[in-house]
């Protein structure tokens, strides 16, 4: 468990990177340097030593939860004991001062808290190290060493990014966990990421990428995705993975592929209509799913939206708060320094009588300064924990929610496809019905006319005239229309798009007839060509064509119906998972933050209680 050793070291040196007195390490200040440790405080001292030892043992192996809970217990126990010690001490020797609490034990006990947090959820995948590494082309980059099932593989940030992009395309119905956002480009130019100087960003990425991998691993679809397993496998070179299937054979548009497996599209999928805007979606229609299901989706969507609505301001506030707290911390550090200076120069006149009182006073002032020092250290630790336990997870959830929006939109687009096909089938069937009716009526009319013509020569004359006209008009009409349509093919194109899926796979062969049908359709839409205006032959032809079309459409319908089922099932599952995740994560967040706050309060309280004791001892 290398990672724990790492993080422990970090936590142990909260001054690193600051200008503080202890920046070079806490060990610089030895216990012995305190000039006012009284003899009477040995009992307290021993208790403290016991604590330190106990903590040492515990921090050595904070791997699994039983030990962890034990740690928590002993910590509480320690606290009680110390309080007890302090109390008894107060009673026994009120004139002596307490031991100067070394920073080491303080930071140790707080480090335990954070360690305990890490080990609470044993991660499947670890990023053990991050640092400069040379990729196979000799380019320098920051590599993250991923440890998974005993194997180690180095990947860089851009590879994580491409992995995520690939997953999004491979699994359009699954919410893909987020990765930390890219380093701003301008910053990159001004100050390229180097392993030495941007440890903060790299640490953050390390944490968040670990979380990304584990979140991915928790999702069954992603875990079983071959791309993901290849990513974790050191035998594969990532650029090659990107160039090979399944990534290489991904369809351009996921709407024209089976939603659960976009790399294996059936020919029919290519016939589906593609829309980009959702404006034509009828949100109230619940065809393709049940009313109940739609309600569930609407509810989930609304909830996730609300989560986003409330978490976004929280995220901002926490960020702001962290900055405020950081400023406060540095003020505490300053106060600590000035109180120390104050403690050395607290008197204006000194003589033999007052020398003792002066010493007590300066001790007390120093203790107060120490209280502020502890406040500073603790607030720095709290800030660090705040970042890890609240700010980053909330940011992660927000990104999750963003991605959820993508999945929801995909589902809506799919539904739109479904609706369009359904509507088209209905229209075609209606047209056939109309045509058939017209034919039937014409037949009846003709029969009636013929019957009448046998009796009346005028009517017979009129029929002749009609027939003549009938034989002329279509031949006049149709070519004109054809011409027209050929004149404006560009204009026609976008309107076709919606139904372009109707074109049979063998485009060359049917292109002409296709055009004809589309022309007709256009006319039909605008209501120009009423069924009774067509000749009988044309009607027959169209009916036949429509039957063929409907056949195809019905196949598509079957397909989209299945797609829809898949999409609904998968989307619902992934949204539910996200909801669960958010709920769970929030629970963990508040729990861990509570722990940190308690640690913070406990340490500060201890320091101030010590200060109070010394202040009491001032002789006036």
């Amino acid at each position: 468990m290398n990672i724990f050793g790492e993080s422990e070291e970090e936590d142990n040196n909260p001054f690193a990177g600051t200008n503080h007195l202890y920046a070079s390490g806490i060990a610089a200040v030895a216990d012995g340097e305190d000039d006012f440790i009284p003899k009477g405080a040995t009992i307290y001292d021993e208790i403290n030593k016991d604590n330190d030892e106990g903590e040492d043992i515990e921090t050595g192996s904070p791997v699994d939860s039983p030990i962890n809970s034990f740690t928590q217990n002993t910590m509480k126990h320690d606290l009680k004991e110390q309080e007890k010690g302090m109390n008894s001490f107060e009673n026994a020797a009120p004139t002596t001062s307490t031991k100067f609490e070394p920073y080491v034990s303080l930071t140790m006990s707080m480090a335990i808290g954070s360690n305990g947090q890490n080990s609470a959820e044993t991660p499947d995948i670890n990023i053990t190290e991050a640092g400069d590494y040379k990729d196979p082309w000799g380019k320098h980059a920051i590599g993250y060493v991923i440890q998974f099932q005993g194997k180690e593989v180095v990947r860089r940030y851009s590879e994580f990014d491409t992995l995520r992009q690939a997953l999004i395309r491979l699994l359009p119905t699954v919410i893909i966990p987020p990765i930390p956002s890219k380093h701003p480009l301008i910053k990159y130019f001004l100050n390229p990421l180097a392993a030495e100087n941007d440890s903060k960003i790299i640490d953050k990425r390390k944490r968040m990428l670990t979380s990304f991998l584990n979140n991915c691993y928790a999702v069954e679809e992603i875990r079983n995705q071959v791309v993901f397993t290849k990513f974790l496998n050191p035998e594969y070179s990532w650029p090659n993975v990107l160039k090979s299937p399944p990534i290489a054979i991904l369809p351009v548009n996921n709407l024209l592929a089976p939603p659960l497996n976009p790399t294996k599209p059936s020919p029919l999928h290519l016939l589906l209509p593609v829309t980009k805007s959702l404006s034509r979606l009828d949100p109230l229609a619940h065809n393709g799913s049940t009313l109940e299901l739609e309600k569930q989706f609407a509810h989930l969507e609304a909830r996730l939206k609300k989560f986003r609505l409330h978490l976004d301001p929280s995220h901002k506030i926490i960020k702001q708060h962290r900055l405020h707290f950081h400023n406060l911390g540095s003020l505490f550090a300053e106060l600590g320094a000035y109180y120390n200076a104050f403690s050395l120069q607290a008197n204006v006149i000194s003589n033999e009588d007052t020398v003792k009182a002066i010493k007590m006073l300066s001790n007390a002032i120093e203790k107060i300064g120490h209280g502020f020092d502890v406040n500073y250290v603790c607030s720095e630790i709290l800030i660090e924990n705040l970042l890890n336990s609240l700010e980053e997870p909330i940011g992660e959830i927000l990104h999750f929610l963003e991605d959820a929006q993508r999945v929801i939109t995909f589902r809506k687009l799919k539904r739109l496809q479904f609706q369009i096909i359904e509507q088209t089938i209905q229209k075609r069937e209606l047209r056939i019905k109309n045509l058939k009716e017209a034919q039937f009526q014409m037949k009846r009319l003709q029969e009636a006319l013929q019957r009448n013509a046998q009796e009346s020569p005028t009517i017979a004359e009129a029929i002749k005239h009609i027939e003549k006209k009938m034989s002329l008009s279509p031949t006049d009409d149709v070519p004109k229309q054809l011409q027209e349509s050929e004149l404006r093919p560009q204009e026609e194109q976008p309107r076709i798009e919606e139904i372009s899926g109707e074109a049979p796979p063998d485009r060359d062969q049917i292109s002409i007839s296709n055009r004809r049908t589309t022309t007709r359709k256009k006319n039909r839409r605008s209501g120009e060509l009423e069924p009774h205006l067509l000749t009988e032959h044309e009607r027959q032809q169209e009916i036949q064509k429509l039957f063929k079309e409907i056949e195809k459409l019905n196949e598509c319908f079957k397909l989209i119906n299945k797609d829809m089922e898949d999409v609904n099932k998968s989307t619902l599952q992934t949204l539910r998972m996200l909801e669960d995740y958010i709920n769970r994560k929030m629970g963990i967040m508040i729990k861990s933050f509570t722990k940190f706050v308690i640690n913070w309060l406990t340490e500060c309280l201890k320091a101030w209680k010590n200060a109070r004791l010394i202040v009491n001892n001032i002789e006036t």
Partner: protein
Amino acid sequence: MGRTDPKGNLVPNHDRSKKPEHKLEILVSDPQKRSGDQSTTSSYVSYQISTKTDNPAYQKYHDDAGGIIVVHRRYSDLLLLHNILSNDHPTCIIPPLPDKKVFQYIAGDRFSQSFTQKRCHSLQNFLRRVANHPILAVSNSLMMFLVSPDWDAYRKSLAGHLQQNNKDEVTDVFMNAFKTVHKQSDEFVEIKEKSDKLDHNVAKIDKIFHRVVKKYDAISEDYSKFGSNIQDLQELCTGENEMLSQNLKNFNEGITQLSFGIRDLSKYLDYEYIVDLKDLEHYIDSMNQLIKLKEQKQIDYEELSEYLTKSVNEKNNLISGYGGSNFFTNKLEELAGINQESARREKIDKLETKINCLTGELESSKKIADAFEQETLKEVSLFEELKTKELKTSLGSLADHHIEFYEKLLETWVKVDENL
């Protein structure tokens, strides 16, 4: 040239080293806005001043067994008391009053809670310092101020008749500003140096605390906003995930308490601790003023002795011959028919009396300066003592408030943790 303070007759009427015989505890509290009575049209803020003492002189004023005498005074009353005390006791470090804060009078928020609370605390500091001072504590004016129901009449009769010698002092100080003491005793050099450093440190800490208060306020604000967000989230979870909702509610409780706690702490720092620091700075100023006054006495003495040496030299010159005046003037005087010899004798006689007079003056001046120095030294060590006492209370209360803050929150958060 030298101004001998008529009241600075330096009779050590009280022994400073001795602690005040009687306990005298004074509490200033409850600032209240009062609308003006008939005489004054404007409204003012009155402070309740409660005194608890075992001094028999006070006995007749408190009627009940509790022994607490309560009066109401306003800022100008305290100002008057301050003036009386500083006139009566020029050799004492008179504790400073809070600034008059003219700006607040103009801006009109002198009735705001923050203003009156701060002033109340500062007045408390003033009276406590007075009560702890062995000389000032037994002043009759103080007793009058603390107990008398006739204080108002007393004040009115005094009004206008009280000589303001503050101005006088200012010009004097200004005149002597460029003169420095030739022979400064080591003790005072040290005191000066140390008090400067002390002042510097306290001022720095004061400044940082101002910023700390601002930051605390911002953080408290952050938490209250965060709390309301949590509340929204909790409402969102109600009915969906009862456990999480309950947890969030718990958590929110903690956050709200944190926000309140920080606000309280910041208020304490702002209203009390910073005021303490400011008062300490002012107190140091007062002490420095006393030291200035002492230096003035010394300068007086030094100038006098210089003058005396000059006169003595002149006399010696006259006695030893013509050394003092030049040939030309002698000739002129001769021409004028002045008998040189008699004129010289006359001059010598004059100088003689002058020297005699000066020697007497010098002696008394020396006495004054020395006595003043002694007084000042005593006063400074008294200051040291009072300051230590004060620091003890103020640091103690700082620690107490922090302990209270952390203890309360720890309790809250442990409860939160248990409920999670």
